[in-house]
């Protein structure tokens, strides 16, 4: 007997109740606190803030909890909140040379002003599961030394002194693009490309960056520098006539020094790929700088042949909230369209069967 597909409303409510139940898990286990997530799952929180385009650790921790640890779902939650916030201005460019550095490494110079500073890194750890972490072992306090007053100039600035690398583009008064407020159109300027990459899916950018290393748009990259630390965010206040610091954020910056360019007129100089991400996210910052450089192929007069160099391809597919939405929408009912296809395929098969019958 046919029962019309009724009761969607109750079904949804019941499904959400079950979801809440499963999210909580075994209720004899204490519930996670947001502080635990923000303090102990810091890198998950960082990723959610970066791809959610909203710097708020508490909200990101809440999103991670609510999403049951599904980071793309958490990013989506944060984005859907962000979209309701007013945009009342944009900041001055952050000065990463003035960063309060926690980690800074260069792969291009053995030593340099300010030195190499490893900071908190997984690099050089042996990836052995640590059974002690099943509990809460006592930890030694981190080693300390007096703050070094030496400035830590950016490696690209050092190279720039000699003119060996293309200079940063001059600051202009042109308005800063914002793809969350204006629809993206192609060709997109670099500000919009960088914004899209900074919000882009880490896995997607990682794969694209990797592809350039394997020959699909090779750029001969060197890590000029990766630095992690806190920078001040300043905004211009028209009423005051000067800029005011409104807060401090942790960012990871990667400057990739890449294949040089020259011409009959200009002597050869290294080119740059740039990555800047909220929080501590080296993998993302490095992938971003590789893809940024690959996307500059057109500007630098290189042939655009590889996926990572194809602006429309990269920017149209880098957003994981968009990707996951459209991929997962295939779960929605499509039976009207499927019925249309059924009708056509039956008709065509019947025609062929009739033809064969007539021929026999």
């Amino acid at each position, binding site marked *: 007997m046919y029962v019309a597909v*009724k009761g969607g409303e109750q079904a949804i409510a019941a499904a959400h109740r079950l979801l809440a139940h499963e999210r909580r898990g075994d209720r004899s286990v204490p519930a996670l606190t947001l502080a635990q997530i923000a303090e102990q799952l810091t890198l998950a929180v960082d990723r959610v803030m970066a791809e959610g385009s909203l710097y708020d650790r508490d909200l990101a921790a809440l999103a991670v909890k609510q999403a049951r640890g599904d980071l793309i779902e958490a990013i989506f939650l944060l984005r859907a909140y962000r979209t309701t*916030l007013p945009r009342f201005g944009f900041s001055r460019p952050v000065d990463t040379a003035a960063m309060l550095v926690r980690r800074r490494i260069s792969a291009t110079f053995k030593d340099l002003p300010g030195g190499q500073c490893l900071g908190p890194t997984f690099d050089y750890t042996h990836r052995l599961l640590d059974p002690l972490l099943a509990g809460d072992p006592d930890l030694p306090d981190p080693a300390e030394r007096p703050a070094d007053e030496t400035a830590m100039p950016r490696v690209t600035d050092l190279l720039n002194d000699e003119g060996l690398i293309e200079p940063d583009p001059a600051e202009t008064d042109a308005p800063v693009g914002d793809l969350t407020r204006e629809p993206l159109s192609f060709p997109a300027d670099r500000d919009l490309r960088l914004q899209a990459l900074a919000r882009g899916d880490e896995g997607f950018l990682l794969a694209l960056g990797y592809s350039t290393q394997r020959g699909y748009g090779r750029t001969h990259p060197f890590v000029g520098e990766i630095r992690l630390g806190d920078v001040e965010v300043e905004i211009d206040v028209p009423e005051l006539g000067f800029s005011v610091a409104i807060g401090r954020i942790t960012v990871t910056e990667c400057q990739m020094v890449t294949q040089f360019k020259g011409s009959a007129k200009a002597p050869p100089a290294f080119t740059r790929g740039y990555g800047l991400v909220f929080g501590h996210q080296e993998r993302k910052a490095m992938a971003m700088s590789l893809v940024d450089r690959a996307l500059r192929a057109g500007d630098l007069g290189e042939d655009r042949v590889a996926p990572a160099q194809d602006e429309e391809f990269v920017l149209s597919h880098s957003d994981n909230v968009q990707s996951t939405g459209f991929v997962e929408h295939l779960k*929605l009912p499509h039976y009207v369209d499927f019925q249309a*296809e059924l009708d056509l395929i039956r008709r065509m098969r019947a025609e062929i069967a009739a033809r064969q019958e007539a021929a026999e």
Partner: protein
Amino acid sequence: MTDMDDARFPPLSNSLPRGERGPVGGSGAGADAGVELNGALSPLVGESGREGAPGAVLDDQANLRTYSFAYLDEQTKRMIRRAILKGIAIPGYQVPFASREMPMPYGWGTGGVQVTAAVLGPDDVLKVIDQGADDTTNAVAIRGFFQKTAGVATTTRTADATVIQTRHRIPERTLQAHQILVYQVPIPEPLRYLEPRETETRKLHGLEEYGLMHVKLYEDIARHGHIATTYAYPVKVEGRYIMDPSPTPKFDNPKMHRSKALQLFGAGREKRIYAVPPHTDVVSLDFEDHPFRIQTFKEPCALCGAEGVYLDEVILDDRGGRMFVCSDTDHCEERRAEGHRGALSGESR
């Protein structure tokens, strides 16, 4: 010039850290902008509408967020309305708009939801369908969203609705002049599967260069003996733009032609809005020797006996048993209420 230049940057001294003051520089194009937002229309538009502020507001006391009427802030609605007006002025042309992230996923109707939010007023009566049915899960979710955020009356009766948001169908009942049909659109570009690049397809539209599409349809006929497009069947609007009618079955295409109702199309992920104003020519592409034909069904609806309507096939058992029932559930219910009966209606209720 952008749509929001004047409104985007209210003076900082007036800004709340996580809130928003009223729209700066006028209160939007629609009748529902601004003032009535503080009313008790919506359970979420709470008493915290500080200083008459629409938009997201963080309530200091309860720490609860409240939202504007129909969720979107007034500046965003104004931006969307402008895109809609442009779309109406150029029927079938895809207007780029600054689509927002919505609290439902891209691909699940965010474009339609934004268009609905922008045109909805407090007196509207909203109907939401998916696959022709009011109680498919996504339709239920979207209807619930507007009940919650706009507090508008909702209905399942096509005749009673002033705004109908739809996915994949056009109601069987002929729409009237006071009604707006809002389509959810996944891929607004009819040429997309022939040319993946937006930069190229925009050029093709600009030059009215639609040879690609005709070649595709011709190749279908050469290969299959039929035009193999059964849904999202391309149409030409007012003799100019080729338009994707959204993935409605081609059965519904003729309903778009010179419809009295305003038809609006929203594609959130792809950031496009387009429109078919009332009484506009909407012609399905075809060839003289292969004229456009809609689907026909051999049997009438098993519940209400309707003919000449679009039917869903329902599999009854694993022995090939199946029945065909109206895809438009409201149409079916109405007919049954009028006493019409189909072959299997005795068994159902």
